[in-house]
């Protein structure tokens, strides 16, 4: 149904972040953060609490504007664009502190994601033109298809706020996928899940990556999950990158161990 995206130029990073920084008051929340995410990559971003991981996501998605540095997605510069333009350009995300549209149904949450890919006008909406009907049907079909991946298609009409915690996280992913991103940013997707759920989640994340040819960057505290699925990992501490490499390298890196366990 949903086709794989156009292949980016070989070698070039799909999401290219170069030296972005931001401070709040005197606090340098993120300093000189860089990342080259190749197409199809599944990378991780880890670090102790308050290291600036979510702030990085907020910088990438335009919630905050970096004071310096550049971000480009598939060659398109993103700094200075509004969050909705960035979503349109193909960068979607989930939120650490779940931000679903609580009063809306599961189906509507997913359908809202697809809104950005549609063509809308007041006229076609109010007159219910033939094109409008076709588009609504297509949006509905896609939404249900995505919800099925996350096993949510049996509770389409339930209000999102009434879902159990784990399902809310899954719904956020389905909603983000409905925007047809090139790059998906997952902010602690496994938070609050039990080991069994985490295992399934790992499979699902790999599954959607392969199925949609996605590129994924995820923030996660569960080291088992990160080490299991991420190809490369970036470690942040006090807003600065302290290590970058394959999981096996990261596990052995003394700086990382120090950041997590404290200096001896």
């Amino acid at each position: 149904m949903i086709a794989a995206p156009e292949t980016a130029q070989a070698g070039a990073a799909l999401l290219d972040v170069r030296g972005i920084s931001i401070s709040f008051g005197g606090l340098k929340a993120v300093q000189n953060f860089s990342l080259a995410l190749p197409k199809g990559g599944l990378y991780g971003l880890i670090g102790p609490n308050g290291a600036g991981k979510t702030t990085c996501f907020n910088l990438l998605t335009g919630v905050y504007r970096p004071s310096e540095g550049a971000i480009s997605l598939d060659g398109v510069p993103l700094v200075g664009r509004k969050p909705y333009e960035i979503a349109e350009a193909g960068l979607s995300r989930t939120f650490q502190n779940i931000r679903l549209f609580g009063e809306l149904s599961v189906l509507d949450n997913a359908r809202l994601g697809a809104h950005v890919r549609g063509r809308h006008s007041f006229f076609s909406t109010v007159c219910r033109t033939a094109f409008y009907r076709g588009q609504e049907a297509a949006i509905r079909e896609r939404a249900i298809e995505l919800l099925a991946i996350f096993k949510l298609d049996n509770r389409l009409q339930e209000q999102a706020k009434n879902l159990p915690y784990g399902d809310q996280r899954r719904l956020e992913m389905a909603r983000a996928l409905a925007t047809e991103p090139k790059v998906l940013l997952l902010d602690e997707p496994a938070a609050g899940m039990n080991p069994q759920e985490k295992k399934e989640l790992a499979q699902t994340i790999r599954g959607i990556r392969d199925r949609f040819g996605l590129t994924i960057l995820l923030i996660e505290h569960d080291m088992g999950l990160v080490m299991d699925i991420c190809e490369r990992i970036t470690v942040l501490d006090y807003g600065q990158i302290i290590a970058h490499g394959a999981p096996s390298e990261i596990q052995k890196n003394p700086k990382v161990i120090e950041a997590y366990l404290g200096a001896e």
Partner: protein
Amino acid sequence: MVRVTHLIEQARSKQPSRLVGVGATLWPMVLAVAVGLLMYLLVGPAIGQFQSKILLVIGINIILAVSLTVVNGFTGQFSMGHAAFMAIGGYVAAGVVYYGSLKLFGDMNFAGGRLSHVGAADFVGPLIGKGDFLFLAATLAGGLFAALAGWVVGLPSLRLRGDYLAIVTLGFGEIVRVLLQGTQSQIQPWEAASLGKDAPVWKLPLMLGGPQGFNLLPTYTTLYWVWLWVVLTLVVVYRLKNSSEGRAFLSVREDEIAAQAMGVNVTSYKVRAFTLASFFAGVAGALFAMDIGAINPTDGGFQRSFDIIIMVVLGGLGSISGAVVAAIVITLLPEVLRDLAQYRLILYALALILMMILRPQGLFGVREVWDLALFKKIFRRGGDA
């Protein structure tokens, strides 16, 4: 970008015949005319003159409450100046009808047909008169000017959140009132032959009666016109709510940051909500002015805005049928509770406070009457039997 065209292509493949779209566009108009005729020809005469008047006011209040639902319910902005848009629409329409009659027909008298004549039975003349076209044009002009004002007021919502915006809309309403009070006195009907003839057209929009209000307007508003617009308003707002666009409006209310992250241009949707709501408020104003035969600067003040807010809040911010029910109840209540007139607003005030504490989602929440469990139960039982 391949995938962008993809949804569109999938949409095209699922597209039904164009005729379906044409049909969907036309039937509400037919229905609107049919309901209008039904109300005017059958219901009105059947219930009597006094009750007809109430039915007419109910219709105007439904238009006001349902349109405000778009702003306060769907997008979760809080406009406290809805009556100001009504006043703008009313004044524009009144000006068009009053001075339009003067310039086109030579005087300010009623020139409509039977459909626009209050008390249909004893009217001799055509079904539709030349004045009706002027009235329809005036109603649309009122709506469009109000929409323009709504667009302007929606712009501050680019930067403002919640209660700040509420205060700005309130302030806007007061500015409108002050400006209307500053207009010059109107050309009276008996001055049509003398003053009216020579008055340059560009000066007429400034002569709207000032603090005394704009009076002695020819009255065109009948049950027919009101209920025609009620049906059109309901169809437009209902279709909007149940569409991809409508979900975008609702997402703004639910969580602006998440909506932005999903590609919804939050600002644009807020402005659209204001523009659309104001259009229908303007239409309601036109109907209101040409029903009473007069409109005052104070009609746009916040007292009236509050009345509409009460309807929308009690109906459940976002529920169209809830707003309709609340508009009906709140219009009827003063008639039923004649003796308690002085306690009426106190009751509303207490209802608002208690509602927020006990049932903050309003009577129906975002849902419609037919989504309620009780309704479903009755309906299903009926279906089974």
